[in-house]
């Protein structure tokens, strides 16, 4: 019984703490976004920061961090997100975000993209180095 309770606690606590952090290349000068602005960027309604700089996106394609991000920001799941962006890419309405394996890959990608914006596991923020952590209000 003790082990079962322990397992349930681990699962619940893991679920409870699955969170994301939005990161951006410091060159963009992006420090805060409203949820609506983040939604507009990740759904392709705009390809610019509120300051008018072009953005390029990346994302993690699966797992609890991706689930939490898409549920809260794009308000759909990753398959809908990918499908909508594929339509945009094939019709010239935008360049589809680049899929990355995990937070480490996202961090490396954002560092190498002057216009890069993406999300990572909230627990990996310390590894983001000189990337800008973007506050989403």
């Amino acid at each position: 019984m003790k082990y079962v309770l322990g397992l349930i606690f681990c699962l619940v606590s893991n679920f409870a703490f699955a969170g994301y952090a939005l990161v951006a290349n410091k060159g963009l000068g992006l420090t805060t976004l409203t949820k609506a602005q983040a939604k507009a960027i990740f759904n392709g309604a705009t390809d610019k920061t509120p300051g008018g700089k072009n953005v390029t996106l990346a994302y993690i394609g699966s797992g609890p961090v991706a689930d939490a991000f898409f549920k809260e920001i794009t308000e759909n799941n990753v398959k809908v997100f990918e499908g909508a962006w594929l339509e945009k890419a094939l019709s010239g309405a935008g360049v589809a975000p680049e899929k990355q394996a995990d937070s480490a890959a996202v961090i490396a990608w954002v560092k190498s993209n002057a216009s890069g914006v993406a999300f990572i596991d909230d627990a990996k923020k310390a590894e983001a180095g000189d990337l800008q952590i973007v506050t989403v209000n």
Partner: protein
Amino acid sequence: MKKYLLLSSLALFAVSAQAGQMKTSFYGYIDAYYENVDDSPSPNSTTKTENAGEFDVPNINVIVQSSKDNTKAFLNVTGGGGGNTSVNNAWIDYSKSDAFAVRFGKMYRPFGLYNEILDAVPTYIGIEPPELFDSDHQLLTRETNFMLHGKVNTGDSSVRWSLTTGNDDKAGKNNPIGADIRWESGTKWKVGTSFYTTGGYISSPDGTGGSTQHMTEEKYSVTGIYGQYRGDNITVQLAGYVSPHEGTRNTTTYCAYTSLDDFRKNRAGCNSTPIAAADYDVETYYMRVGYDVALGDATLTPYFQYDYFKNEEIPFSKDDGGDKEAGLSNNGAFTKMTVGAVYRPDFNLALKLDYSQHLQEVDTNSNGIVDGSAENYGEYRVSMSYFWRL
């Protein structure tokens, strides 16, 4: 195709060499297809026509997209059918802001849910396009050459607008104009309206777009509304269009068509005094519903589609610029119901299978009286499509 790609890539990279922040992406897709139509009825005959199964590769597309600051270039080259290569889209877009941009070149007109993505079969749930884009009875041309457009973000949602003109149905001094305005809430909701007019009479229409080749002159417009809901698992699409036509029929040509049924002959006065003035509406609407079922990393999406189309002017035989669906029906109307499924083992590959039933009244007896009987026939299709990105 190689030549086009090489030239376009060189052109894009040549500019790229001068500009460090330019981003260029390459996409492509292939759609292979098989269709088998059951034995189908014909006007003026009780004998059904046998139809052979048909393999095709309708969409082989390579796309290059490049952007720098506020400028974008887009190239979509197709080798559809595995034969001739052609450029479907080649345009340059300059945006002053999200709300205002100019696009110049050769482009698909924003017009409802499908016109801009029609070639991109991997992106949607069915195999066949909605009836308004069936090349045998298109409602309007797909391409245009100049567009003013923009997007206004309003909190959680946005409004996208566009105004287009180009060669379209241009002949003589008419100026075709297209417009589309849609409200989008993220990826969930899309609701809009589209409009198109030939801007006057097209002289000597050649049967492309919404025109009919047996007219000496013709003008038409198209107005429609559309909506889409895309939830986590469910996709629902609804759209309806009406297209009023006015023209002058070449009755000598029209009445000589051997595949005309009694309805069309009576309507055009072929058995008495031929009537040159043509005034008719083309109508269509459709509904599409799909539901995603997760199978591990794969997805299975069963879908249902309902299409209605009506064009009472169009003849049956393709040799006469006709259509074997609307031209078969004794009032130009038919419905098509389709059930099928898409299986995606991964996001890049789509395997589709579906079956349709066509229902219409057919006049199988040429006796001067419209005495049609309800006829139906089926067809099934298989499609395999794959897209890639570099």
